[in-house]
């Protein structure tokens, strides 16, 4: 009992122990911050990577794509009805995104999607800006530009379908702050599709004093990555300079079935900017645009093309996204779908051309984790490495605790002699100092966990504060780290793990001084004052 009693008595009566507590606290806070930020980074990468694709992807592996995607989708839904929920094809290509109003251009990855199917297999819909406030109005089909004007109630209004959609959002929205925030945002009435930087807001529509209407020729819609088109503000929102429905254009080069350019000039497709998409991954949001699948397939000559013998080639896609039923195992499903793909391909072989046979042989079935593995694995390794390095640095705490306890043992030699003279064993005395170190570690860990948690929870505010003092101190750039915000969640399991290791490390740090204490010769310790 004396070990516990004296250990905790020394804890709050010996000033020197506070240095041990402080060192453990700082180390725990440091490791917890690193672990939480890196762990949050990894979790965000995983969560967002998952949301980018469907659970399973049949990836063509080439830019020219692979045929029979539609047939395989139907085959799959028939063969594995308990596994597959739905399938949707995707085309991807590369080209130039252009805003005619400003002649501004930028390289872009162009994705052809069927919006209804695409949002059903991943989280894409959650990142659409206008779709949130005007549900059901983001479409990729042919459309004109909505122009706000003076309505019947003599106020600036959008065309009735957009106003109705906005009313629907207001009725559905459960967060009154979100509605208030939206209402506070100025309603743009820019006479031109391109809004000057002086007029900033969330609701950017072209407007004039006429009635609300749709205006201009019909073009297919395009959803643009939020960082590609807009300017990110410090608060994480965006300045939108282009009115919704403004005309933009895409330039791209069609590829033949064997990947040649077919000798044709690049296509130039006029489109209407209908929404912007925010996946939270900078590389995607600054590079991707999303257009209608069928339109893009046709423009890129991936739809059935006439053959010299009178027939037609099969339509091609680059990916087939496969959504799974609720609760099915990801890897098991991948293996089943992979098997189904091989069976399906074997059934095609007698009739398929050599070119198509090569294309389907290159297609492979992946889970979303397989596709993102290089990225996720890199972040995982980064997390392990950084945590290891900081843990290594934190080992200084062990040495520090060892030094502090050596000093304490030196100062407490007489107390050790007293305890031995009244029957305490060497092992008991060693135990006293190990418990003492454990108590120092425990208090340091608790304080460190509190400090570390507070830093992590407020890490974005801390960065903003530092950046307001000196912009050079903004260390988390979304350009570098993909995400807008520094991850700020502390996992309980991480906190418990770090605190436990810190307590154990403190006890390890005290082992040598404890051993010295256990060997104190009581006669020598008691002889003098």
């Amino acid at each position, binding site marked *: 009992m*004396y070990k516990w*009693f004296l250990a905790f008595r020394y804890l709050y009566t010996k000033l020197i122990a506070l240095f041990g507590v402080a060192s453990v606290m700082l180390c725990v806070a440091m490791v917890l911050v690193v672990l939480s930020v890196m762990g949050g980074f990894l979790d965000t990468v995983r969560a967002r990577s998952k949301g980018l694709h469907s659970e399973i992807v049949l990836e063509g592996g080439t830019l020219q794509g692979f045929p029979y995607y539609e047939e395989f989708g139907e085959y799959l839904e028939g063969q594995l009805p308990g596994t597959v929920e739905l399938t949707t094809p995707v085309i991807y290509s590369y080209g130039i995104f252009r805003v005619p109003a400003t002649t501004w251009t930028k390289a872009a990855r162009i994705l052809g999607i069927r919006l209804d199917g695409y949002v059903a297999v991943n989280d894409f819909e959650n990142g659409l800006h206008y779709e949130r406030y005007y549900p059901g109005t983001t479409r990729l089909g042919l459309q004109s530009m909505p122009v706000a004007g003076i309505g019947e109630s003599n106020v600036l209004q959008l065309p009735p379908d957009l106003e109705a959609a906005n009313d629907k959002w207001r009725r559905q929205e459960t967060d009154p702050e979100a509605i208030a925030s939206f209402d506070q945002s100025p309603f743009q009435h820019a006479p031109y599709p391109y809004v000057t930087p002086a007029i900033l807001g969330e609701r950017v529509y072209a407007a004039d004093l006429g009635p609300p209407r749709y205006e201009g020729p019909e073009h297919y819609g395009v959803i643009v990555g939020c960082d590609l088109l807009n300017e990110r503000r410090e608060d994480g929102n965006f300045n939108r300079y282009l009115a919704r429905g403004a005309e933009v254009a895409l330039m791209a080069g069609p590829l033949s079935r064997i990947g040649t350019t077919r000798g044709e000039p690049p296509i130039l497709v006029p489109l209407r900017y209908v929404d912007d998409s925010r996946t939270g991954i900078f590389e995607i949001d600054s590079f991707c645009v999303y257009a209608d699948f069928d339109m893009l397939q046709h423009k890129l000559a991936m739809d059935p093309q006439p053959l010299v013998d009178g027939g037609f080639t099969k339509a091609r896609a680059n990916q087939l996204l496969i959504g799974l039923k609720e609760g099915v195992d990801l890897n098991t499903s991948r293996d089943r779908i992979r098997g189904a793909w091989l069976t399906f391909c074997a059934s095609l072989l007698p009739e398929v051309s050599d070119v198509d046979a090569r294309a389907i042989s290159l297609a492979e079935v992946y889970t979303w984790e397989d596709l993102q593995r290089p990225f996720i694995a890199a972040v995982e390794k980064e997390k392990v490495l950084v945590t290891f390095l900081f843990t290594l640095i934190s080992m200084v705490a062990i040495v520090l605790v060892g030094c502090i306890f050596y000093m304490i043992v030196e100062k407490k030699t007489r107390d050790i002699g*007293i305890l*031995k*003279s*009244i*029957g305490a064993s060497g092992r008991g005395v060693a135990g006293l100092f190990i418990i003492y170190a454990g108590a120092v570690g425990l208090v340091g860990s608790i304080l460190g966990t509190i400090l570390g948690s507070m830093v992590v929870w407020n890490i974005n505010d801390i960065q903003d504060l530092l950046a307001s003092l000196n912009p050079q101190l903004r260390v988390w750039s979304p350009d570098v780290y993909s995400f807008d915000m520094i991850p700020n969640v502390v996992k309980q399991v991480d906190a418990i793990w770090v605190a436990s290791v810190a307590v154990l490390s403190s006890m390890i740090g005290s082992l040598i001084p404890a051993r010295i204490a256990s060997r104190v010769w*009581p*006669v020598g310790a*008691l002889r003098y004052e």
Partner: protein
Amino acid sequence: MLRARGLHKSYIMGRAPLRVLRGTSLQAARGEFVVVTGASGSGKSTLLHLLGALDIPDRGTVEFNGRNLFDLGDHARRLYRNRDVGFIFQFYHLLPECTVLENVLMPRLVTHSFWAWRRIRRNARRDAEELLERVGLTERAKHRPSELSGGERQRVAIARALVNRPKLLLADEPTGNLDEEVGEDILRLLTELNEAGQTIVMITHDAKVASHAHRYVRLSEGVIREASSPGGRPIPAGLATREVIP
């Protein structure tokens, strides 16, 4: 009760061994108050440490109730120090972080586990408070040693030595650090304890202290020079005074 025979003890001082005890023997009967006197460096403290099993002799034995302490294992010797012997030191040796009451309780705390302590703590506390009352420090129970005078500290040390009701009290110059008046108080307290049946072996360089003892021996250069001299108090009837074996 206590019989030390032919104790030899030397220490290495620099390169040469320093022979402190050279065949010292001493006996103490139950209820006896024996004083060991001698000049500084004569080996008094070393003898007391050997009697209390705080140290191990080069040669010789210390028998307590017929058992040689140095034939016992480490655990048994620790129990001997905890239960059979109470130490009183010249410099009190109280734990500065603990209160008076906690210092007195410390020998009980040492031998009880966390759970065992929960069972006995009320009794232990009552015993400690009784002892503090006996040494006149009830009001000082919650004070720290640094808040006490030298005499009060020594009284706390005496209470601590008695908390496990030891059969033998070993006192190492208990008045050596006190002025004459306070020292006399402490000696009176020890005499009272002895009169109540407590066996005491006390070492001192002050020959006058012998007036409180039943007998005293004088140690010089590690050997008993003057053995079994009668002290200032008459030996009570029935108490067998033993000869010190030179």
